[in-house]
């Protein structure tokens, strides 16, 4: 699955996107896996209340299932306009 990072999530992790091979059932499970990888991931996912997630380019929730999802994106609250 493609995992994308934007804004300071991208900066903390140090890359804009990567391929992740995972059996995680939900977004929260995927986050646990990523956190366990390295400090930079742990730092990026430290405070979930400061994060948003999109599944296949639609805003979603941390408890959403990942089945069938091809693209997951993590980013801070949006500041457009």
């Amino acid at each position: 699955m493609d995992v994308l990072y934007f804004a300071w999530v991208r900066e903390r992790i140090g890359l804009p996107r990567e391929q992740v091979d995972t059996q995680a059932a939900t977004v929260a499970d995927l986050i646990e896996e990523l956190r366990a990888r390295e400090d930079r991931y742990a730092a990026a996912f430290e405070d979930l209340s400061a994060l948003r997630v999109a599944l296949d380019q639609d805003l979603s929730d941390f408890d959403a299932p990942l089945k069938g999802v091809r693209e997951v994106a993590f980013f801070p609250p949006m500041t457009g306009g």
Partner: protein
Amino acid sequence: MRVAVQSAPFDLGAEAESFAKGNTRMGAVVTFTGVVRDVEGGDLSAMEIEHYPGMTEKAIAKIADEAATRWSLGDVLVIHRHGRLEPGERIMMVATAAPHRKDAFEAAEYLMDYLKSRAPFWKKEITADHTGWVAAKDEDEDALTRW
């Protein structure tokens, strides 16, 4: 409906004129234009806007579609820039055309409120001695409860 996500500047005058020209059977045309303001202290050298290509266009179209179901609208235009912008440059604009002014105003405000907090853009401020991501404001999230 037209949605444009672009790094290039847009011509507000030409866009407003052509939008109004295409909607002469509507009684009311509203435009909103967002401008890069200098930060407190006056030392902003630039703003960088990151976005999520693909999702951005979809998210904006969804917001505009929702506006069209809530109000009687003839047309909607959204232009949003990304990349590097300097103080005084225009970040984005929306335009709405409706038979009546109330619909045109409310739809434009709705579009703005949702673009602020639900379209995947992130702003970074660059000053002489600091670079930092703009934090989302509670008041922008609260603005959504109005709708």
